[in-house]
């Protein structure tokens, strides 16, 4: 087993959810150490660790913190727990199993960046994790770990959970800020970046749950201990949420750079009996798909996957076996993005809907051969042309699915049924 449990070591313990259970395993022992450090030392340590944002973009965390202006304005720390990407469920487990780990990471991070107010923005559907977090926050307040003068350090930090109303795009940092401000969850133009002008137009750092949780480990054991795992450019471990046609779907923590195929075969028990690997989306549904052949060459790090034209993203590995119809799969994904586009930028608003309509025409047997190229043209003209990455998220799967599995699309158009399943859309779904 290549799993290295830096973050998830105690996730199997039910009591780890509570303050007592967390403390029993050394929880909140890093805080006094952090308070003795200068904030800049913490930022430097995080920079030295090579920690990159685990939400999807993979931006170096310490560098992001360094963008905060030094003008004495109030600043905010937002934890992005709006986990809405299809296939992604790692943050949910962290919040359910180790809420205090996140809280401790947030306190250290807030101390480092000089923030006295933080929010955990959670996907609205995550009712149980929200409940767990709220209980943990109350415990932390009662124990003097949140609020005024934490552990006698003179540092104040208040933390609240904000329950999102349920929009995928609120996981995008500026969309999340809009939502937190009470507006419709729509991304904002950058620049200005949130670090300069974010929540309530004040400097704001937005980090993913996993990123913030990793900060505790980095400060506790040091940047070099963290760097022992992973690769030069992709340091540390990462939680991968594996779903699809594997024997044991679930969350697995492995060092970055770990071979994708080993994750499937060793950690997840391989493909379901009698089935062959067909394709994998390695980083959440917005990442371009890899064919089985490409999967064999892929390592789970930012660089290796970028080299194959895809991305690590949020680490949501969606595995498809040879029974999957790629036209149908793409139809599901495209429908999701058409539903979730915030409606702000024209290419995304209209393009996602257009892609959805074309795919459903094909799926319902009304497709034309030129529709396959049209899918590519529409997706091409959505990519990189909008405020946020949702347009890309919708376009990239289309481009990769249609390019890599074109024969299935052509077959579907000609025959009006799935090449893999041999059935029509109606038969597939009823």
């Amino acid at each position, binding site marked *: 087993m290549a799993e290295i449990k830096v973050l998830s070591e105690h996730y199997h313990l039910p009591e780890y959810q509570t303050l007592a259970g967390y403390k029993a395993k050394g929880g909140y022992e890093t805080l006094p150490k952090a308070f003795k450090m200068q904030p800049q030392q913490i930022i430097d340590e995080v920079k030295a660790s090579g920690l990159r944002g685990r939400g999807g973009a993979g931006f170096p965390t310490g560098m992001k913190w360094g963008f905060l202006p030094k003008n004495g304005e109030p600043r905010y720390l937002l934890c992005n727990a709006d986990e809405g990407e299809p296939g992604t469920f790692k943050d949910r487990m962290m919040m359910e199993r180790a809420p205090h780990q996140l809280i401790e990471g947030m306190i250290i991070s807030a101390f480092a960046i000089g923030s006295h107010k933080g929010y955990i923005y959670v996907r609205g559907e995550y009712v149980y994790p929200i409940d767990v977090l709220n209980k943990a926050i109350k415990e932390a307040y009662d124990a003097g770990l949140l609020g005024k003068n934490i552990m006698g350090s003179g540092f104040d930090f208040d933390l609240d959970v904000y329950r999102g109303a349920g*929009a995928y795009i609120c996981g995008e940092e500026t969309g999340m800020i809009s939502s937190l401000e009470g507006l*419709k969850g*729509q991304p904002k*133009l950058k620049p200005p970046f949130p670090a300069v002008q974010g929540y309530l137009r004040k400097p704001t750092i937005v980090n993913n749950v996993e990123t913030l949780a990793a900060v505790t480990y980095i400060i506790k054991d040091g940047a070099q201990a963290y760097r022992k795992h992973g690769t030069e450019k992709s340091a540390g471990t990462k939680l991968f949420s594996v779903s699809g046609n594997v024997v044991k779907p679930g969350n697995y923590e492995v060092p970055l750079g770990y071979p994708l195929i080993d994750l499937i075969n060793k950690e997840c028990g391989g493909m379901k009996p009698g089935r062959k690997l067909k394709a994998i989306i390695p980083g959440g549904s917005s990442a371009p798909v890899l064919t089985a052949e490409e999967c064999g060459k892929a390592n789970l790090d930012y660089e290796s996957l970028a080299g194959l034209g895809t991305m690590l993203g949020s680490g949501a590995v969606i595995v498809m076996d040879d029974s999957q119809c790629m036209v149908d799969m793409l139809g599901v994904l495209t429908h999701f993005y*058409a*539903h*979730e*586009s*915030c*409606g*702000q*930028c*024209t*290419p995304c*608003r*209209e*393009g*996602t*809907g*257009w892609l959805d*309509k*074309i795919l459903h*025409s094909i799926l319902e047997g009304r497709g*034309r051969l030129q*529709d396959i190229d*049209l899918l590519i*043209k529409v997706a091409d*003209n959505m990519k*990189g*042309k*909008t*405020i946020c990455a949702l347009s890309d998220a919708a376009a990239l799967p289309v481009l990769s699915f249609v390019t890599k599995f074109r024969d299935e699309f052509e077959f579907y158009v000609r025959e009006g049924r799935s090449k893999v399943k041999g059935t029509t859309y109606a038969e597939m779904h009823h």
Partner: protein
Amino acid sequence: MPKCTINGKEVEVKEGTSIIEAMQVSGDRIAHYCWHPGLSVAGVCRLCVVEIEGNPRVQIACNTMVTEGMKINNTSEKVKDTVKWGLDFHLINHPLDCPICDQAGECGLQDQYMEYGKYDPEMAEAKVKKHKVVDLGPTVVLDSERCILCSRCVRFTEEVSKTNELGLFNRGDRTEIGTHDGMPLDNKYSLNTVDICPVGALTSKDFRFRQRVWYLKDGDSVCNGCSTGCNIKVYYNKEGLFRIKPVYNEQVNGHWMCDSGRNAYKFVNREARLLKGIARGTEMAPGAAAKSASEVLKSTSGDAVALVLTAQYTVEEYEAIIKTFVEEFKTKKVFFWINNKETFDSFDGLLSRGDKNPNTKGLLKVMEKYGISATWTDLSAGLANGSIKTVVVAGPENQAVFPEYNEKLKELSKAQNLIWMQAGKNEALTALTGNVWIIPMKTFVEKDGTFINHSGLEQKIKKVTNVVSEALTVTEAALLLSGKNLAMPMMAPFMPTNQRPDQVELEARKKNEFVFRRGSL
């Protein structure tokens, strides 16, 4: 002052200028819907794309600042293709209802199509159906299907009127603008949303379906609705005036004007106007009525004559009539009829002022010049004791802002002789009998002159059109009242008999290929 190159031309701009603003400076055309100079940058229509040397991707010009040495291009094939696709995205769900759309002729989408479109559509799917004829409030109607969600109107209510009635609802291609629950679009500036709508999604209830815009001419003027003096464009044709829109003036009104100012065209139109003069109950031409009144003024001069002025005329007109009264009729009994005095100094923080006259400062300036210090109490006393025998009144032009009109009329009609100069009809006035003269006057769109606004800014107004050609200006009336004759107007410049003044030049026609490709349509 960074220098950049736009389509090969070097342009120097102020620090912090966006590319789209730099292109306004350089005169280069650039497609855009959501960008508006009076609103924040939204960057959502994605049409104002440019290529910047050294940058692999096209960028939007509205949210990219010019930096020193930047090389910008918006004529490359890459940009054209992006704009063409951007247009396609805008059009796939847009209804093809130009023939019945109120914005036809001044629609950004039509313009863009003529510039970048003209190709076979690739969309074979059914369009998304949205709501039509949505009643947003007392002034504006929405056609959601036509809306391209540029969000200008939403930003206007957030940033300018600060009333926040509008919002974007739903997601994806189901997104529609609308009003928040129980909050109609009902503010003093609501019709600006219609002006800034680049397509025919928001239409003015007042204007929609009344005229095709290509049947209208326009002329610049200054609003006479209040002492702000918003710069405006008046749209008219031989049937009358149809609408008023704001014209940008940074010093005065920026890009906006209030809804009540837009109504000014209504009292200018012929159906609201006095067309004939009346002299002691006999209808006659306005000039003849003034001449007739001059006989009375000859016989009663000095302190027996009083002049009552409203602040809705031009400086030149005040100069002419006050001079006539002071120098020829030897009276300084000139009175300022103040409407709504208690709110004269109020201001809503944006444009609308309590002083509902365009030229209070101008009137006061001329009165001061002639040493006029009479107050309304003097007039009331003079009328009560009979020392004032003849009263000459000029105004009001916009009767709606003079709520005490009828009381004042009652008071002034105590005079032996009443000479009333006014543009609009008024039943109470025309019902007066006895020694009453009524002289139809021209309105602010029918004459040249100067208004001085609340801040002392002098603004020239030019004649836009003639609605009641027989009506007089106060200057003309002053001449006639003093027994003089009007000079003959200047001859219009010579024009061949076969050429209309508004005839479109051939070169301008060539730009419209429909004219030359009729057979292919």
